[in-house]
């Protein structure tokens, strides 16, 4: 390119306040932020497995956002269901063990990390894990 493009950085953020059209059913969005979501991630994965898989398969067909709105609503509703009932992993391994035991007794959900090499103890079951001041 021999021409110089002028910069196009806006100093005001572009926010579109138009809501979704009325023919699309409304679903309450999740208000949980990243930390509680991360701690509940495996349990959401176990609880909402079918809906999540449905959504991912739908997305694999067509990346158009409109195509997967229904599956997306189901995923949101399922996750909301779980966050209503419950809520950086290695600092919290000790309370996590009691959380996992409690989750298993009360809700019948176990935490499994898919992709753990066979013969290796899953990281959340390691007796004396390494600690760092912050995970990432």
């Amino acid at each position, binding site marked *: 390119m021999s021409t110089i493009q002028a910069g196009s950085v806006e100093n005001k953020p572009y926010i579109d306040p138009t809501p979704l059209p009325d023919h699309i059913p409304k679903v309450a969005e999740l*208000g*949980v932020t990243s930390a509680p979501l991360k701690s509940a991630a495996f349990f959401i994965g176990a609880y909402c497995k079918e809906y999540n898989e449905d959504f991912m398969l739908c997305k694999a067909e067509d990346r158009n956002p409109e195509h997967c709105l229904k599956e997306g609503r189901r995923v949101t509703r399922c996750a909301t269901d779980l966050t209503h009932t419950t809520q950086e992993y290695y600092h919290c391994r000790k309370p996590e063990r009691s959380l996992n035991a409690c989750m298993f007794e009360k809700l019948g959900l176990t935490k499994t990390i898919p992709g753990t090499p066979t013969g290796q103890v899953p990281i959340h079951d390691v007796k004396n894990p390494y600690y760092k001041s*912050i995970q990432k």
Partner: protein
Amino acid sequence: MPVPWEALIPFGLLTAMFGAAGTLLNVSTRAQNQGKPARYNIDNWDDMMMRRDKQLTGHKRGQSDNPIAPAGFETSSVWFTERTS
């Protein structure tokens, strides 16, 4: 025999200056991250989640466990845009 304690002053100064600079940097980064250590190795997923956290709580390190999003959350996301003209 008198010990040349004045020769240790530069060492003391260096320690104090490095210590002050390091402490100030630490305090400054913690203050920007609401008292927590700064995040590093942030990938696109983490960046996206922190943008969502900012939408939900007003600060990119803010956290909340409220199951329902506050009103106006659906329409408050910032779009990546560029002027074309």
